[in-house]
């Protein structure tokens, strides 16, 4: 049986409030799936339903091909890392890690082996007899990870496991997670609201909003081909520019200005039917210049945010706000500037449904395979 998790019309509601609406998707064996979304979007609820900590209001959940709706947590072969780590405060590091194994009556030798190996991997040597309260945040996180790892379960669930760590620790913790996954190849479901974590760690991202799945795809596709306005805006920082616009005969009109799209876009757009559209472009895909450009829009700099390596430049064009990014530090507030969207990086959305109108077929960016990505991380 494949170590898959399959949602079939899964719903979850508390009283009248639906927190998860009609969920349909499959998490593949050995995959690192990230559940991403702002707080309150239902991502943790999904994780907890997989763990069996929440009942499923409607629909079916399959794991390993078996229906799991009413299987108690303990029989689902999952391990979980909680945001607050949930370490038993009265047990030492070692007791914390082996407690679950003891409950499962694992042979002593096997227990020792597993303990030793995980202590090694997660660099917990020397901390065996400490109580959680005497550990640093990073150490606690590693103990929680170790406790989940020793179980060697098929499914590995993580609920914002890194959110209580500072930036540096996060990076190293991420590497440890990857290491663990490479060793045991569990199916990982990982909840976070941090898109960088998502982009770097995920095989696929499931982006949630308001209890609904917005998009489920590889990080590349989520970034480059957002399925809707929400995805476009949520992924990427600064957030994508979304402007009200008209599309007429190859020209995109924003207020009094307009620019022309390239031929493949024209061809693509001709096949779509729509009334009003929204035009989207990421700040990093805007070319910025002091002198007029063809297909450029004129605007005025309102505010500059210096990020060191680059600056975010807040502009106003035709009464709409836009953000651009530049590595050039010589911009001045109040200056008149011209911006030009890179024409193969633009997005169009149906204004009413906020759904993407799609992209021309011959997009240039490479679509990495999961294996390729993993080598890079």
């Amino acid at each position, binding site marked *: 049986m494949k170590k898959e998790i399959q949602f079939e019309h899964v719903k979850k509601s508390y009283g009248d409030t639906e927190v998860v609406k009609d969920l349909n998707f499959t998490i593949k064996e050995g995959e690192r799936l990230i559940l991403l979304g702002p707080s309150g979007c239902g991502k943790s609820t999904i994780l907890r339903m997989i763990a069996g900590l929440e*009942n499923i209001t409607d629909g079916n959940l399959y794991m390993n091909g078996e229906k799991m*709706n*009413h299987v*108690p947590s303990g029989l689902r072969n999952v391990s979980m890392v909680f945001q607050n780590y949930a370490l038993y405060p009265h047990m030492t590091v070692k007791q914390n890690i082996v407690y679950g194994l003891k409950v499962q009556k694992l042979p002593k030798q096997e227990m020792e082996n597993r303990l030793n190996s995980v202590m090694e991997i997660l660099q917990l040597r020397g901390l065996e007899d400490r109580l959680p309260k005497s550990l640093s945040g990073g150490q606690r996180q590693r103990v929680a990870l170790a406790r989940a790892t020793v179980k060697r379960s098929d499914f590995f669930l993580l609920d914002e496991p890194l959110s209580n760590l500072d930036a540096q620790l996060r990076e190293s913790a991420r590497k440890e997670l990857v290491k663990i996954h490479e060793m045991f190849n569990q199916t990982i479901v990982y909840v976070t609201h941090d898109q960088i974590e998502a982009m770097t760690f995920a095989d696929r991202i499931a982006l949630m909003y308001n209890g609904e799945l917005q998009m489920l795809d590889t990080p590349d596709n989520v970034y480059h081909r957002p399925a809707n306005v929400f995805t476009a805006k949520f992924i990427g920082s600064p957030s994508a520019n979304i402007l009200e616009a008209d599309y007429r005969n190859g020209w995109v009109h924003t207020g009094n200005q307009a620019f022309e799209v390239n031929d493949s876009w024209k061809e693509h757009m001709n096949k779509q039917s729509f009334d009003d559209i929204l035009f989207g472009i990421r700040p990093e895909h805007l070319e910025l210049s002091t002198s007029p450009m063809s297909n450029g829009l004129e605007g005025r700099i309102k505010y500059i945010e210096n990020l060191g390596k680059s600056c975010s430049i807040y502009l106003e064009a035709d009464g709409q706000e836009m953000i651009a990014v530049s590595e050039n530090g010589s911009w001045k507030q109040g200056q008149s500037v011209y911006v030009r969207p890179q024409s193969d990086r633009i997005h169009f959305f149906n204004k009413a449904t906020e759904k993407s109108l799609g992209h021309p077929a011959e997009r240039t960016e490479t679509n990495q395979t999961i294996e390729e990505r993993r080598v890079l991380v």
Partner: protein
Amino acid sequence: MSTLILVREKLHINKENALGYILLIPSIVIFAVFTFWPLFYTVYLSFFDWNMISPSKEFVGLRNYFDVLTDPRTYQILGNTFLYIVLLLVINCVVPYIFAFVIDVVLTRLKGFYKSAMFLPAFISLVVGSILFTWILNPVSGPLAIIFGWVGLEIPNWTKTEGWIIVVLSIITSWKVFGYNFILLYASINGISREIIENARMDNIPLWRIFLQIILPMSSATGIYVFIITIVQSLQYVFTPVKVVSQGGPDYASSNLIYHAYHEAFVVFRTGHSATISIITMALFLLLLFLEFKFVERRIYYEN
């Protein structure tokens, strides 16, 4: 087929929860036999005229309620009860609150000593305390009266003076109750983060404001608990000194609802009246509980 699965699923849920019921069984059984059965029996008795031993109980309908509610003495005792409540709240809620605050937040020395010493009487029998206080507070011959006598003061004849008797019995009760409440409140205040208080001190906020506007709201959950427990438990505690010292006298001036129920049942053996008074007392308590649930529980969420 699908219905069968549904039923099975339902049963499965129940199986998970069955243990919950099982865990409650010991408590439920004990309460059912030793609390609820007596309670229903009391409700039943409140409709009868009976002296506990005669073989026949005379059904009198609501007459006991009518008798009790039209008896001016009931209102006197109700008044006493409220006086007790007010006094006990002041001595056992307000004072320990302030004490706990000052000892924990303001003082630097002797904290441990004060805690230990004030908690100590909570461990001693109230019967012993009552006997002792009767002796110590004898308005003519007690040590206190003698010491007062040196400076030409007289102790009021509290055992026979309306008002004073309630004050003194409340003090005796407080002797036992004070320390327990103090420790609870101390624990709660002690749990408030020091940063918040230090921050307030840096803003030069006076102590009384810190107490009222920071400590009080942040420890309100315990405060409410102590408040309720003071009202309910203390009234039951007061029973002991009333019985030992004054037997409700003079002329019911120190009786409260609980002692009066006892008096009716065991001194003049009017079971029906006693039951009626008990029921009324409980109704009042439940009203309090209800108010607490309705208004207070909601307000104290932010503590956790």
